């Protein structure tokens, strides 16, 4: 079986203008949304109290809101979580109650109203911890990008390094943009997913760059653009299959992993799609625009193909 049986080289780079336009459009859209709507930060980042309550029968959200309102829990956000019997309640701080004890107090009220209410989980995060986490998360992303920049520049060439980092930044911003546009909750697991997107997209980009480098060395004739087209065509099958298997498992996570993991799966699913696109267009386009050429990729000393690979089976 063969997904795509390409006899001819696909002229990927013929579409470079529309692709660049699309990427820039998506980037601008994401940045505007991030500036205007911002992210719907989850409890991990904002701090606060949140409880998860399970009921025997379908939970009546209106009723729960009313009960909480009457007991002075104002501005409580009540929503279903995962199933119709589970409810997630976010509590605003309340005078006279320590924030760490807010959850217990609210649960007591709910239990009095309906004794099938069962505490399934609760979280309290102080605002200082939330702020730290935001800083740490941003830092983690920057450090990751810089490390990758350095590694790829060392292993390949600075044009590729800039290309891959551009592709990664592109993926991260657009994934964040998606969360901002749809106001999906951005919690700690989503942050982990965004960082995993960096890992995945990079994986893809490296494979493409590797092939481009190889072809620059092997094919002595032809324009840079043609060589990039050839390389992208050669790796296209692999790119699609790997994305497909990854998407398969992510779909399993998305549908079966439960509410806690939903945001994580959403971020990764979208990230893998955008990452697949960016490894074809963004990374190589940037490298091409920066003027990558055969001379840049010639090995400094002549090495026999596969000479350094004896150690492997």
């Amino acid at each position, binding site marked *: *079986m*063969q997904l795509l049986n390409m006899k001819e080289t696909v002229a990927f780079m013929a579409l470079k203008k529309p692709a660049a336009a699309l990427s820039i459009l998506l980037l601008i859209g994401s940045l505007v949304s991030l500036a205007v709507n911002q992210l719907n930060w989850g409890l991990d980042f904002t701090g606060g109290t949140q409880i998860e309550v399970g009921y025997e029968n379908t939970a009546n959200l209106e009723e729960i809101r009313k009960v909480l309102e009457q007991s002075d829990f104002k501005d409580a956000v009540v929503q279903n979580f995962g199933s119709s019997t589970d409810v997630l309640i976010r509590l605003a701080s309340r005078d006279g109650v320590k924030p*760490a*004890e807010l959850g*217990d107090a609210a649960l007591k009220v709910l239990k009095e109203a309906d004794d099938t209410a*069962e*505490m*399934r*989980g*609760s*979280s*309290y*995060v*102080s605002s200082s*911890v939330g702020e730290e*986490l935001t800083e*740490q*998360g941003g830092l*983690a992303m920057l*450090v*990751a990008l810089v*490390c*990758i920049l350095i*590694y790829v520049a060392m292993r390949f060439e600075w044009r590729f390094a800039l290309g891959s980092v551009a592709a990664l930044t592109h993926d991260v911003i657009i994934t964040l943009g998606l969360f901002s546009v749809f106001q999906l909750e951005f919690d700690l*697991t989503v942050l*982990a997913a965004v*960082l*995993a997107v*960096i*890992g*995945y997209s*990079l*994986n*893809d980009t*490296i*494979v493409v760059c*590797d092939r481009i480098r190889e072809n620059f060395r092997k094919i002595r004739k032809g324009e840079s653009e043609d060589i990039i087209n050839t390389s992208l065509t*050669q790796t296209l099958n*692999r790119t699609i*299959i*790997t994305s497909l*298997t*990854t998407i*398969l*498992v*992510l*779909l*399993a*996570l998305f549908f*079966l*992993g*439960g509410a*806690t*993991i939903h945001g*994580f799966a959403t971020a*990764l699913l979208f990230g893998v799609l955008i990452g697949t696109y960016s490894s074809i267009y963004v990374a190589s386009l940037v490298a091409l625009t920066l003027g990558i050429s055969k001379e840049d990729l010639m090995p400094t000393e002549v090495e026999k193909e*596969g000479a350094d*690979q004896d150690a*492997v*089976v």
Partner: protein
Amino acid sequence: MLNQTPLWKYFAVVIVVGICALYASPNLYGEDHAVQISASSNAVIDGATLDKVSAELKSANIPSKSIVLQNEQILVRVPDSDTQLIARETIEKALGDDYSVAMNLAPDTPKWLESLGGTPMKLGLDLRGGVHFLMEVDMKSALSKSYEDMVGDFKSALREEGIRYRTVKQIDDGVEIYFRDEEKLDKAEFFLKNRNRDFVFSNKSDLVLLVKMSEQKLLETRDYAVKQNITIIRNRVNQLGVAEPTVQKQGPDRIVVQLPGIQDTAKAKEILNATATLEYREVDLEHDVRDAINGRVPAGSELLSYEKGGPQLLKKKVIVKGSSIIDANSGVDQNGMPKVSISLDSKGGAQMLNFTKRAVGKPMAVVFIEYKATDERDENDKLIFEEKRRVISVATINGVFSNKFETTGLDSPREAHDLALLLRAGALIAPIQIIEERTVGPSLGQENINLGMQAIIWGFVAVLVFMLAYYKKFGVVANIALTLNLVMIVGIMSMIPGAALSLPGMAGIVLTVGMAVDANVLIFERIREEIKEGRSPQQAIHHGYDSAFSTILDANITTFLVGLILFAVGTGPIKGFSITLMIGIATSMFTAIVVTRVIVNAWWGGKRLTKLSI
């Protein structure tokens, strides 16, 4: 001949995979409901305890699978959770307060496997259920207390030395001493500098001496405040009857407390917040202890138990309160005997001086006061705490002393160590605050396990089917590698002592399953290309593996880098995810490159082939 594997490589692969499989196997066995008994500081667990426990269970007709004494703990395995509850209550009643009896899930790993160090993966709190607290020590008030002590200390020292000062004032980050003339200031600075090497002196103006703690001392003070709290929290956690609690320092001023399996979090918080204190008291020598034991306790005195020397009759008047204790450390004196060195603040020092002046040769006792939670609650639904007083040390006063003294005559270094711990526990501590709390109920934990498992299984099956359909016989090879990869991840996770599987960790495994085939896809696509270019099947296999290798290596190293950064910067769920991701990358490289090559060589290597099933 192309594509032959040397014999040693077969062995190496079999051994590596075999070891991982061996250590993964404990996860196949279930867990027993169990009751775990451990001793507090003033009790020991030995054969007699074991006999007592088994006799007690027998007389109460409680069935048990096994009762074992191991690592100074007794583990009683019982058939089900109902029995577990009854067994715990029975044992707790029979053994009394000196033992902590906790409910636990003990892995049902066979003996031979356990003796090899095989244990199942630990589950994180989100899968097991339990509470996670992050507490922060209020450093500001801890330091403020130290500055207060400095003020008192400087005042009395200067007074004793006869250096006149105008005033000593505590400021935000140190102490200011005001003088009337420069000469006094210089004299005081010289004197105090020699006396206190931990402080940094500077002149704020001609008449004001500014004293700050040295960096070293500041660090020690902070560290001490955290350690003191950790000691106290550990003590209290033992009261909760949790099987495997974690109390750990995190960063400069934080403490992580994890209590797996706890369900009543409100109770846990109340117990953690309860205070302990202590008092130095005079032993009543004017009355007979025996009379008091018989019920005639004189007014102004009280009878308290003392583990080491029988009940003690103490005067009710307090000499020095625990809140005056600054530090207590165990060590050895010049004769090599164990001792505890104690420092008091200036107020306590003055009180102690007053008392010891007229009490040389008399015994002095330390009373430890703890608040233990009862199972009752008052009308406000708060737990009722019972005050427990006991004597932890009685010592004869050998001379007049004030704020620094030593307790000697202890039987063992262990006793000295325990006494120092208790003294510190009873001292005024820097207040702590819960800054993060996460509770996962047991039902949610089980649900998370089920959901995670389902996602893994279905994701796994989907990839297996796809690979088989797409690459046929080579797909079979990739699928074997993928299965072994999963086994190896589980095996390594079980081998690493600190690693716990969490829900994000399970997500990491799922993601690894999806990405692990990438290496094989790369290799197989290469082989197809080589065949298209007209190479013979054997050569295609050889070149396919060779040329895909550096690509796979680069791609995986960079992803691994990301995992490493996640691990270094992240906390909690992010760490869990990054650990499985990194392990997954390492194992998938091994299975996808080495293991598949061995299988491919064994299957097709050295044969005359005209076509490949790829």
